[in-house]
């Protein structure tokens, strides 16, 4: 298992080296996917490698000349990497526009990285609008056409179906991994799980699935560990963000056990399936519309609180650690409502705001106090 983990860690930590080598070996092109919600299957079917653009665990420097400090560290951070030539493996970027910051980031990227191919999909915020499905369908078809123009090759229905199947296999494997984790969370560190998921957002899905299947086999064969005196928690939020490993470790070092999650580099990536037996574009549109509740999407029929309450119940968690990217507007707007409703449902919630200054001692104090509170509630 350690050998596999080393591989995942390396891919995530040294994405640049990994992808540069991959490009040399395959001669293929790489398309950056701006977090979140780019329908990667279409890019995959075009014969390109879709790679999620993360912000790295380091201070933002060059981007400050172009963006104010009151822009979230994800958008400032990944743009910073582009200015530091750390994303040179990219041939282009596909943006969505589900939030204001992402929406506006595309123009700033274009002006400052003119060598790249760009495409922006207009992803509706309103999930219940009369023409939302048609509008989104048109956007996905438009992406398909833009990629066809870019590569000079048609994307056949057959290729799309194949890509969907490859992605779906990967999602199902991740579901299996999470099932193992739920049953015996002591076996995994939250940090390791995030690394496994993140590696799959960088490397080709085919390769990731092969490694993932091995990991599941090896982890399943391990003897269940004895639970220590720990409390089970869920981490939620962290939209667009890859939570810092130091912070994930800190959560668990204070005596909590992360038994499941509701984060972007986690369950949010694979929970909602894409139907294999439908017209491919239609299937992708439905996946977007039926995806997990998200503060960025307006959908009164799919609220976040009931989803969280249910997840807590299913996983027998005792509390939620909510990771909020500072300046993530939609998420920040939901916090009073979330706190009120979850508290009313008897679920303690701790809100931790994150930025590029990393895991601080103040966070440790609050996490530890939260764990101590959960333990005293339980005993």
């Amino acid at each position: 298992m350690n050998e596999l983990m080393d591989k995942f860690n390396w891919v995530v930590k040294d994405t640049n080296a990994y992808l540069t080598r991959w490009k040399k070996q395959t001669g293929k092109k790489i398309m950056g996917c701006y977090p979140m919600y780019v329908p990667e299957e279409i890019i995959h079917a075009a014969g390109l490698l879709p790679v999620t653009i993360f912000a790295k665990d380091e201070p933002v420097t060059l981007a400050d000349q172009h963006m104010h400090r009151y822009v979230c560290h994800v958008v400032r951070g990944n743009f910073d990497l582009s200015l530091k030539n750390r994303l040179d493996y990219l041939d282009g970027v596909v943006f969505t526009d589900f939030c204001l910051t992402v929406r506006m980031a595309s123009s700033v990227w274009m002006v400052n990285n003119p060598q790249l191919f760009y495409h922006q999909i207009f992803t509706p915020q309103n999930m219940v609008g009369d023409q939302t499905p048609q509008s989104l369908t048109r956007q996905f078809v438009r992406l398909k056409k833009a990629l066809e123009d870019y590569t000079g090759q048609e994307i056949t229905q057959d290729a799309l179906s194949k890509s969907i199947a490859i992605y779906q296999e990967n999602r199902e494997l991740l579901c299996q991994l999470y099932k193992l984790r739920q049953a015996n969370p002591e076996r995994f560190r939250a940090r390791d799980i995030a690394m496994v998921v993140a590696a799959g957002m960088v490397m080709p899905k085919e390769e990731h699935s092969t490694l993932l299947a091995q990991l599941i086999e090896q982890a399943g064969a391990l003897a269940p560990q004895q639970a220590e005196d720990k409390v089970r928690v869920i981490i939620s939020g962290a939209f667009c963000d890859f939570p810092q490993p130091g912070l994930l470790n800190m959560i668990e070092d204070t005596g909590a056990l992360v038994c499941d999650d509701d984060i972007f580099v986690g369950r949010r990536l694979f929970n909602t399936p894409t139907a294999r037996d439908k017209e491919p574009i239609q299937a992708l549109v439905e996946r977007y519309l039926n995806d997990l509740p998200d503060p960025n999407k307006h959908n009164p029929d799919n609220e976040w609180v009931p989803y969280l309450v249910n997840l807590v119940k299913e996983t027998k968690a005792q509390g939620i650690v909510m990771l909020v990217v500072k300046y993530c507007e939609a998420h920040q707007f939901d916090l009073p409502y979330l706190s009120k409703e979850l508290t009313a449902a008897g679920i303690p919630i701790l809100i931790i705001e994150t930025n590029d200054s990393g895991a601080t001692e103040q966070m440790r104090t609050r996490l530890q106090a939260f764990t101590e509170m959960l333990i005293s509630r339980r005993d």
Partner: protein
Amino acid sequence: MQQIRSIQEMDIKLGERFQKVFTETWEHKKAGGLVCWSTSGGYNEFLRELGIRVVIPEVYGMVLSSTGMSPELCRNTDIYGYSPDLCSIIRSFSGFALSDPPMDPSTLPFGGFPKPDVLFCADYCPGLVKMWQEFARVFDIPMYVMEHPWVPDAVSADPEEMGNKVQECMTEFAGAISFFENFSGQKLAEDQLQKIANNMKEASVLWHDILAMNQNIPAPLSFFDVANQFAVFQFYKGTDECVQYYKELKAFVEDRVANTVTSIPEKYRVFWFGLPIGYRMAQHIEKFTRIQVQPVMSQWACYFGNPNMETNDPIRGIVQYHNLSTLQFRGVEWKRDYILKLIEDYKVDGIILEISRTCQVINFDQKDIAETLVKKTGLPMVSFEADLCDERLYSDEQFNNAVDSLVEMMERRGPGRL
């Protein structure tokens, strides 16, 4: 020489219009009429014809800012758990709208406004959708969200996609009309919408004519004088009254041009890139008068009205008005070119960059745009941080330092353009 009327006269008129809106809305509500809270991004002009009175809390947020009430109301939302990073206009009016127990409206400017029966939100600023969701939960009333696509540079350059966007927006708008027809149980006559569109076009042309008069040297009004006057658009857009108001305003400004009257002695002309600061407007005017610097224009004033809208199809026209005119919803290159033209047309000597901390719509791409403006025009520029409503994010000291050093820079350069 005839007596030139003071700008205060128009401000008083504006105040009367404001008072009238709020008084009428209360009376309407008390008589059992329906009230809708909606957004300044529009599409709500037709509601009046269905017997629904519209309140635009954002505009009221600006009023709260100008009257100095915002900090107290923002503090309320701090207590409810809203981060001070969030838009302070939204926090200002929500500090009142969500107050529990409810605040006494008579303690508020213009007597406040009544609770809504229905909500209508155009999604040009996602923060508004979030707060409208909370209103829908708190008041337990229906809400209609209308997609409002942005136009980044790639789309500005793609007429086909642009056409598709307009078409989609028209379908969305038609959907909104039928939603509110059902809600109110009334039907909107076709000629009513046509009349609204015609009035919107006429008022837009008037507004942009008024702004263009500031190209005169000296400018008849400072940008701050102009800034207040946009408000009539927000409450009366599409009505005869709105057209009438801007006709009067235009005549008033023409009078000043004819008599070369200005409101601030004009040694230097500057461009204000950002938003006006309501809670310091008086102090800023006082400062600029003292140092003889006239802010003649801002990109902000151009957000309102679209003189190029078509009126043969009112639905298309109204969509064009809201969606295509709106400078703030465009990409970096489009905005930059637009502002460059403003700077040329209005013949300025310097640029003041106001950075509104909690408004990403305005501040996000400001740095790149400002950098190009300086590069291309060679004009001196200074910046200061502030915020629309939350005074706690603003420092007089920083503002004064910035403006004083701009004057020094302009002096070194000499009043080249005058």
